[in-house]
């Protein structure tokens, strides 16, 4: 099987068949008209020979569809460039050793889940003593001094605490993404930091289920961490980046 990486198409069971599956709801009652509406919508999305394999009546004038079709489009995989964090990932012990050797001072981290977001699951996984999936959190790192401010922390308060503790890095978690509230919150934090002239005094790092490194850079952060991140990933980035800046 020879894949042409300049023209990558979706794969069902045969190369270049372009097969995709999707499901959606229409605000019309289930029926033959609704089924045809779903098919036409799939055609307008650009799918070839769409098949409505399931229609369900959701009540109250709504209907639900499962649709299969062939997507004729392709992408040039060879032309894709994704900014990546370039630092290697170190273990708990390696990070602490690195700090003792290269930075020669404790790394101060202030972390919070900001705005009205009350979900601490992400920040707790990274910062709390216990950590996540067997990896200790930053509080457990002997060479780190970590402050977890918890949830629903206003951006201004997070910055005030960061200054008070002389933070080397600020960690922000955003879990609720309804109506892009996370983007507003994250942008506001950076703007506040710039207004107070402390943007470049510390690293700004964000994380959450809908955060990518690319998005973080776009929002003016130094790094972003998405799903599957473990505490040592974040710790590795922080210490390597601090060391790099120290040398500059």
């Amino acid at each position, binding site marked *: 099987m020879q894949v042409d990486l300049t023209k990558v198409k979706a794969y069902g069971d045969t190369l270049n068949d372009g097969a995709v599956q999707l499901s959606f709801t229409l605000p019309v009652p289930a029926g033959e008209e609704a089924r045809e509406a779903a098919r036409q919508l799939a055609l307008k999305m650009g799918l070839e020979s769409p098949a409505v394999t399931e229609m369900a009546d959701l009540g*109250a004038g*709504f209907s639900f569809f499962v649709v299969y079709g062939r997507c004729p489009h392709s992408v040039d995989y060879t032309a894709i460039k994704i900014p990546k964090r370039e630092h290697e990932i170190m273990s708990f012990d390696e990070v602490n050793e690195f700090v003792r050797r290269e930075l020669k001072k404790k790394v101060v981290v202030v972390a919070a889940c900001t705005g*009205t977001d009350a979900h601490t699951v992400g920040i707790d996984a990274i910062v709390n003593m216990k950590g996540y999936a067997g990896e200790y959190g930053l509080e457990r790192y002997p060479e780190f001094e970590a402050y977890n401010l918890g949830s629903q922390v206003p951006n201004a308060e997070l910055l005030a605490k960061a200054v008070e503790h002389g933070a080397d890095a600020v960690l922000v978690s955003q879990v609720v993404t*309804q109506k892009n509230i996370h983007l507003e919150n994250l942008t506001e934090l950076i703007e506040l930091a710039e207004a107070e002239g402390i943007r470049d005094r510390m690293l700004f790092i964000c994380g959450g*289920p809908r955060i990518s490194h690319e998005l973080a850079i776009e929002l003016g952060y130094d790094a972003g961490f998405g799903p599957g991140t473990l505490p040592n990933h974040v710790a590795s980035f922080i210490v390597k980046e601090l060391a790099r800046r120290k040398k500059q």
Partner: protein
Amino acid sequence: MENKLNLDQAIIDGARAAASRIADALHSWISLYTTTTIERAVARLVGIDGVDAAGVPLPNVLVDRLHEKGLLGHGLLSWLARAMISTGQGPQEIAEAVAGGKLDVSAVPALPEEKWRDLGDGLAAEAAAKITARRLEREQMMATAAPERKPLLYVIVATGNIYEDAVQAKAAALQGADIIAVIRHTGQSLLDYVPYGPTTEGYGGTYATQENFRIVRRALDEAIKETGRYIRLVNYCSGLCMPEIAAMGALERLDMMLNDAMYGILFRDINMRRTLIDQHFSRMINAFAGIIINTGEDNYLTTADAYEKGYTVIASQFINEQLALRSGLREEQMGLGHAFEINPAMEDGLLMEIAQAQLCRELFPRSPLKYMPPTKHVTGDIFSTYLINGMFNLVSILTGQEIQLLGMLTEAIHTPFLSDRYLAIKNARYVFNNARHLGEEIIFKEQGRIQARAVELLNRAYALLKEIEKIGLEEALERGFFADIKRSRDGGKGKEGVVLKEKDYYNPFPEIFLQRSAAKDDDGRAC
């Protein structure tokens, strides 16, 4: 209740007795205090509503004025009764006059108790009669509705716009949901007031307001007519305004309230005393209104590990039960919470979930247990999440859970789409129907993995309760016994709203609310 787990009744009794003494220790001081939100709830119960020119709710305006003048410790209602006598006006007019600067709260003359007491008692009796009417209305609607099949299917709506919420709530009911919760704005628990009027914004949901309660209740009452089933409405009686939300819910015929004794302390960093005082009054209202409360032990397992800390859920359920009994709640009104949150990668994790769920069932046989779906370990792989939710449903039907908060396949992605709820209901209905009597057919192997796990959970919960009894619940919270979260006794939000009652403190509601529960012919648990 069949004893499938080979539990030692002496240990169960010991755990319950320890929890009872823990609750008694708290109640040695809870009744010495009132709070700003308790007095605001009293204001709402006697009909004070609306906002002033700046948008501040009138119950807040009135209570703040009384608090500033140091009058709150006597109770709002005695002041109000005297104000009514001296001005000849009703509660709402008086609140408006205070807000408009036309009435100085300290200008209301003192009167001997016999002059105003009947008026105060009358206002309270009138409010209680309104709540009773809503309760009887529910009981009557339920009596004529189709009989319920447990577990009840519980879904959430969270569009952030109350009118859209009402549409989605009704659609969910038509799809087969029995219970609908309208999620609140994520920040509401920290507001020291209840917003007013219909609202169409908010993140993670819109605000809980009395008007919003009415709007969704109306939509669900339409669904009741169309489906012939009674559809329960849920909201959140938590945060800084627990008693006020309870009062609003009682007046608008809500059917369930998230109403935990410790949730606010742990997860919202609300002051310990404030929360413990508020939960007592709010639960008395819920008890009187016939509302089922849901406790929040499931949340512990989102911050702490579900396998390692499963016993803290059991210990907390015993404490929540004892505190609830002291507020007049019957066991049938206690939706004690737990969750299916053990890491799905764990070998025999399903057996451990069965042990925990069956244990809850046997320890609290009359309580309508609230079982929460997996959230912590589910990812954006909706297909996998759908399967895990199926396993969760299987454990529920096997162990006789009663309030099933349905897992959404898009958990961890976004607030549920309309179709996500449909698929969740389809999943639950399939499993519940297909395995309806599985629990009656199954016995667990003597000293097998499931029995051994249940016994271990109970033993550890008992040990924890004995330790908490020794040091007191406040100290236990300070040391992080629950959810791995530590809260200091004097820290947290809202402590400025705690007020020591004066000798002549007057609030006739607790007596009215507790009387009904005491009068009930009941062979249930007593505290």
